[in-house]
């Protein structure tokens, strides 16, 4: 312990400043609670006894803890199929995204590359004007991609915004001298990209991975309009059936009336279990990537 006389004390806060501090922290906690409450409720309800949910006994904490809803979710062929498909689309899609976005961003960041201004302009143009839903649909149909996995992977293979964010990073945050030095030493351009530039671009790649991955995982629209084969559906389509259209699919309990009544009750907990199962993977990962995506939003806001 430091003696009181020597303790470095801050300048005494005036009463006004103390009130200001209290108000600030109160509001911050209020914001946090409002954001957290629905999520906590979902988690609590998913492990509670459905009879207690129906009678309105669950307000914050779970009661009558049981995991039957999760058992039903993990037994459902639909949910498992959707999960497998979503994992495939998210990983394969993100891989394609990263390779193409990095390639495009790096090439267009070379200051003395002929044609870069024109190509960059055309790419930026697609951010502000597009063919729209119907012509895009027809194009994809004409390319023969309807009802194939490609419809989930290729139409969103590059986001112009992300490409430009990454190009900004390559132009402003990677020292151009090391690229020049590698060139002088006889390194090929692709070699420079892979061995010199990418190792110092970890943060921007992390940003891109999380942006794209979350995008794929949460994508609903493209699956709805481009797919009609149930075997290809990602999780979000099944989620909509269960959560919004109240269709239990293969979990409905079949023709057995006792089973059906039981399922109807269990549904009250099951919808929350499905939400948890669909969301938990991302909820567990993003806090660790927080400092990266905060940086990403900042890089994106710098004018290029």
């Amino acid at each position: 312990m430091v003696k009181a006389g020597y303790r470095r004390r801050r300048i005494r806060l005036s009463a006004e400043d103390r009130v200001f501090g209290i108000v600030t922290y109160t509001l911050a906690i209020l914001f946090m609670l409002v954001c957290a409450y629905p999520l906590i409720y979902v988690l609590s309800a998913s492990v509670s006894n459905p009879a207690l949910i129906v009678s309105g006994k669950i307000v914050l904490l779970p009661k009558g803890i049981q995991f039957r809803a999760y058992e039903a979710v993990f037994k459902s062929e639909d949910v498992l199929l959707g999960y497998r498909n979503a994992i495939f689309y998210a990983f394969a899609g993100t891989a394609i995204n990263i390779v193409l976005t990095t390639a495009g961003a790096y090439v267009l960041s070379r200051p003395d590359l002929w044609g870069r201004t024109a190509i960059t302009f055309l790419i930026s143009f697609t951010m502000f004007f597009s063919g729209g839903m119907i012509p895009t649909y027809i194009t994809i149909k004409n390319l023969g991609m309807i009802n194939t996995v490609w419809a989930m992977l290729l139409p969103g293979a590059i986001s112009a915004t992300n490409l430009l964010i990454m190009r900004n990073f390559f132009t402003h945050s990677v020292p151009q001298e090391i690229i020049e030095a590698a060139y002088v030493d006889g390194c090929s351009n692709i070699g420079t990209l892979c061995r010199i530039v990418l190792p110092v671009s970890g943060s921007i790649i992390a940003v891109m991975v999380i942006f794209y991955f979350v995008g794929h995982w949460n994508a609903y629209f493209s699956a709805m309009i481009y797919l009609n084969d149930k075997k290809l559906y990602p999780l979000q389509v099944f989620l909509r059936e269960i959560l919004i259209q109240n269709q239990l699919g293969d979990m409905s309990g079949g023709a057995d009336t006792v089973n059906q009544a039981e399922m109807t009750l269990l549904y009250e907990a099951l919808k929350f279990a499905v939400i948890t199962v669909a969301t938990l993977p991302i909820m567990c990962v993003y806090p660790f990537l927080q400092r990266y995506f905060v940086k990403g939003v900042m890089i994106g806001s710098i004018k290029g």
Partner: protein
Amino acid sequence: MQKIRRPSVKRSLRKYWDLYLILIPVVAYFVLFKFLPMYGLQIAFRDYKPRRGFWGSDWVGLKHFIRFFSTYTCWQIISNTLVLSLLTLFFTFPLPILLALILNEMRDGPCKKTVQTITYAPHFLSTVVVVGMITAFCSPSTGIVNTLIKAFGGDPIYFMAKAEWFRPLYVISEVWTNTGWDSIIFLSALSSVDVQMYEAAKIDGASRMKMLRWITLPSIMPTIAIMLILHCGRVMSIGFEKVFLLQTDLNIGVSEVISTFVYQQGIRSAQTSYATAVGLMNSVVNFILVITVNTISKRVSEVSLW
């Protein structure tokens, strides 16, 4: 300073042939999935027949545009779009600024970090999950919202079936999902405010409230102005997914916006050219809005998108 020479084709090709090679798939992507659909926009002026393609279908001029503007519902759809996005803007714009200011006043540490992490969380939920949660919470018999209403002696409200609740539900859920995420941009603007100004103010005996009013707010005013202008440029382009998922037969009168109308006509009802025309009209309006607000922003603050 090194003088930047205009790149010559030959020199560039020799030096960068491998980069041009890896640029091919990127260019191919934009041509196939972005510019080909733009070329396809011409079917807005034709009667599209799948067998005859974009180019071969009969030219009909402005027929589809005239048809849209002569329908009884067209102004309703346009006003639904505008009202919904203006309401959303009105409620979702100020809160992220407030949150960023609060976070900025907090000391760095686990408390601030926790508030940030939790307020960002809803941004990572999918639209389907958010609408699913709304549906579950607002269920008249078992939803928590109605349980609370009943606990306070009120009558349960069937939110999803009431047209007048569509807009509040949409706006509230937008606020919930995006406030934390949207605060990041303001927070990063706040972090670049010169610390010396605060120190000077402190020596002069300024209270924290005074510093907030006279240093912090003026410093992020340009960012606020730009964000507001950019948002105004997007008033006609409301997201499709959430409106579509919240739409029911009972609220269609207020929930039919341009994008859902285009989907309904073009993909469900196979009125391809008609839907394309409505979509094109919307895209052109959006484009003009973005260009206009960007020009204004450039003139006022010398900040622009490009």
